[in-house]
């Protein structure tokens, strides 16, 4: 025991700089926080003390890198290695002491300062104890797990490479390699199969295999930037995966520490197989990048000839560069010819596998395999976004058969055509998996979408307002793009308005969405941070308009109904070439003639309401700025408008 205490103490002494840095930086974060004068409102406050805090996230990554690289610095020097390995300890014991000390050096100041941070937050009234105590504890635990995982990657790089430059390179490869490779694979699959849109497996791999993505997902640092609340259930799978990585990396580092030669070996890496992994890993990354890069010249399609060129010219260049990097000798550009042949074979094999995967993922699944479907026409943005719609919709039974046949015969599996609209589809298969497809609905067949649009499941999936039961914890806001009001309604009145809106939505036709511009928008704003729901009001929404007018809202009031002072018309032109796209103002005209204003105003709609519901039929290159007098008639305000139907 005395020996162990001695080893822990000696190891700590060698890391005194890091101990001081950890306490100093964590303490400074508390000090800066205590002097903060502007704090976000609402539930975002709890994020300051939770795992999503960006400052502590940055500290976690930075200390993880530095302490992983500095854990066993004695391995860098022959005499120091002789001293430590000659002491009466096994290598396992030496590793455990170094690893544990690093953990303590980071975790102790982090926990103390985060709890102090929490106390400051309570004292200044930024947090409430009951609401934020769980976030505060998770704010200690998750960064520690994240630190262990970053430290693991950094330590692994340190143990596997023999000089600092290569250690850094290996670390960057570990951190960014999987994410970059998976993005390249996704891009290539998209080029190979025009109907490839999304793969759940690829998305999961991108998060779970990419250390930085996993850290971001587990801590919720990206959500923090968005200002939403930190909810454990959403992060639990990532925290579990992070724990798994931290344990796996610790075990792997221990194993390598135990078998690592005490003396320098030939080459830049400690073990020869590491060089092969790096060589072929980099080759696949660069090869996929080359192939994807050249596909740019296929202009949206996939060219096998360009792929062949990329392989034939790309592999020798990458091979030469890798030779130079791995030997740190420019003269080695032309060497290791055996590897060149193997590299060609490996890349061709990878591309062959991806091609098989692409052709499989691009095919429509057989009708009998499908349990439910979801269809989204992203150009219809009223309601929810494309991906959100796909997760919410469940078309089943007879409607499923109709929808499937419609996609099969109208859209097909071909790529994008002129005058066509993107259509995203999710197939929920009977085996429990989901398959996604992107198809192109020809412009001439747009009317046929009316049948799909009319289906109850489609509307329920597309319009979030149809999925709401009550408005107990929501307030209602109305706008016509010119004015905006929060309606002072009791719960019963809110419920009546919702019912009226839902009835109108159920009767909404695709033709109305396509051909009519909304006259207003309702926003159901959550008071419990559950996300807001918005929905457009179309001219045919008689029940909604009636209900709104009952509550004193001039819901039918359009641009032409205001007292307009003048309209400024800005006309823009676009110049574009292969590599440029410039939009510039061609001319500007101010209309003051009352008759002309009256005629023009009949066709104008507030820009805010023209969010593509007309499937892009608006002329967006002519902007109308309408200067109107407000209800009191004293103030001239202005609103941007577009000319519509």
């Amino acid at each position: 025991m005395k020996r162990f205490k001695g080893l822990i103490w000696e190891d700590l002494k060698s890391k005194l700089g890091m101990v001081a840095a950890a306490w100093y930086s964590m303490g400074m974060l508390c000090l800066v926080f205590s002097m903060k004068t502007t704090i976000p409102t609402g539930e975002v406050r709890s994020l300051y003390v939770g795992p999503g805090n960006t400052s502590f996230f940055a500290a976690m990554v930075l200390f993880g890198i530095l302490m992983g690289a500095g854990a066993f610095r004695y391995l860098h020097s022959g005499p120091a290695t002789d001293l430590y390995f000659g002491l009466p300890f096994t290598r396992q014991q030496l590793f455990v002491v170094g690893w544990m000390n690093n953990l303590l050096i980071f975790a102790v100041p982090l926990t103390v300062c985060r709890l102090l941070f929490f106390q400051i937050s309570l004292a200044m009234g930024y947090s409430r104890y009951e609401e934020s105590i769980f976030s505060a504890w998770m704010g200690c635990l998750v960064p520690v797990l994240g630190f262990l995982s970053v430290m693991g990657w950094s330590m692994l790089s340190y143990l596997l490479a023999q000089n600092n430059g290569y250690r850094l390179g290996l670390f960057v490869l570990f951190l960014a390699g999987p994410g970059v490779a998976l993005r390249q694979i996704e891009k290539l699959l998209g080029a190979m199969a025009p109907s490839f849109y999304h793969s759940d497996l690829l998305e999961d791999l991108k998060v779970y295999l990419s250390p930085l993505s996993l850290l971001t997902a587990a801590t919720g640092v990206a959500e923090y930037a968005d200002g939403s609340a930190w909810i454990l259930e959403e992060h639990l799978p990532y925290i579990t995966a992070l724990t798994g990585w931290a344990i796996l990396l610790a075990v792997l580092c221990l194993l390598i520490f135990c078998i690592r030669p005490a003396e320098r070996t030939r080459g830049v890496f400690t073990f020869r197989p590491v060089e092969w992994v790096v060589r072929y890993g980099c080759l696949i990354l660069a090869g996929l990048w080359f192939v994807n890069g050249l596909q740019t010249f296929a202009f949206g399609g996939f060219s096998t000839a360009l792929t062949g060129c990329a392989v034939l010219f790309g592999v020798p260049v990458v091979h030469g560069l890798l030779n130079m990097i791995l030997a740190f000798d420019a003269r080695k550009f032309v060497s290791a010819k055996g590897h060149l042949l193997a590299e060609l074979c490996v890349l061709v094999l990878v591309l062959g596998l991806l091609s098989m995967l692409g052709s499989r993922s691009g095919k429509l699944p057989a009708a009998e395999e499908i349990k439910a479907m979801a269809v989204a026409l992203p150009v219809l943005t009223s309601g929810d976004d494309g991906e959100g719609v796909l997760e919410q919709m469940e078309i089943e039974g007879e409607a499923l058969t109709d929808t499937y046949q419609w996609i099969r015969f109208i859209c097909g599996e071909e790529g994008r055509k002129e005058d066509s609209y993107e259509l995203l589809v999710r197939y929920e298969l009977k085996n429990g998996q989901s398959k996604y497809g992107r198809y192109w609905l020809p412009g001439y067949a747009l009317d046929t979408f009316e049948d799909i649009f009319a289906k109850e499941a489609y509307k329920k999936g597309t319009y979030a307002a149809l999925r709401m039961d009550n408005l107990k914890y929501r307030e209602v806001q109305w706008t016509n793009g010119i004015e905006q009001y929060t309606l002072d309604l009791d719960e019963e009145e809110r419920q009546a308005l919702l019912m009226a809106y839902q009835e109108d939505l159920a009767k909404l036709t695709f033709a109305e969405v396509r051909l009519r511009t909304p006259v207003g928008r309702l926003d159901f704003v959550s008071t419990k941070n559950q996300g807001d729901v918005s929905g457009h009001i179309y001219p045919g929404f008689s029940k909604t308009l009636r209900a709104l007018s009952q509550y004193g809202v001039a819901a039918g009031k359009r641009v032409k109904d205001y007292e307009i002072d003048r309209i400024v018309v800005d006309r823009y032109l676009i110049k574009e070439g292969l590599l440029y796209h410039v939009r510039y103002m061609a001319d500007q005209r101010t209309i003051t003639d009352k008759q002309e204003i009256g005629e023009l105003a009949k066709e104008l709609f507030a820009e805010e309401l023209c969010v593509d519901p007309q499937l892009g039929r608006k002329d967006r290159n002519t902007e109308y700025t309408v200067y109107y007098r407000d209800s009191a008639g004293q103030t001239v305000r202005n609103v941007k408008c577009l000319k519509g139907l």
Partner: protein
Amino acid sequence: MIEICNISKRFGKFVCLDQVSLEVPDGIVYGLVGENGAGKSTLLRLIAGVCRADAGEIRIDGKRSLAVAAKQEVFYMPDRQYYDRNATPLTIGNFYRNFYEGFSMEDYRGLLEMFGLDENALLDSFSKGMKKQAFIAAALSTNTRYLLCDEVFDGLDPQIRKAVNDLLLSAVEGRKLTILIVSHYLEELDKICGMKGYLHRGRILTEQEWQELL
């Protein structure tokens, strides 16, 4: 007793030790000689458990050399000693006192005094020989049963070399210390070694083979 049985060690394509077998009896000074690159230092590092052999086995008092129980009985003094930039003889003593139960600070201070070394002076301000004296003092104060010395006489003047020889021999006689010394100072080895081994290109030679080689 140190038993080395068919030990082999390669560095890439270079065969450093090729099935070397050796027995070092207790209570003697064993000298290991050989030309540069013969594998002497490597053999010492293998015995000390610093590096691992590719094949073969080393046992110290019947225990595997990598086991803590064996390492507790061995003190390894490499050719080049590592110490912190701010280290003094006193901090060196405190360092080893943490790890070796038998370490005697009293003995250590006595030896430092004998060598005329200030325990609070920076090691960096010492000459090569003075640094070596400080580490010899530490090695003898650990009171382990085995002492592995790599080029222990390097940098010592003749007077100090004699003093070191006397110290080593008194430890062998007094507390049955077993010393394995690797050195190019053949005369010094002749003076103190009870047994000698000859390493040549990774193999142990007989004295006759060694003489023929010379």
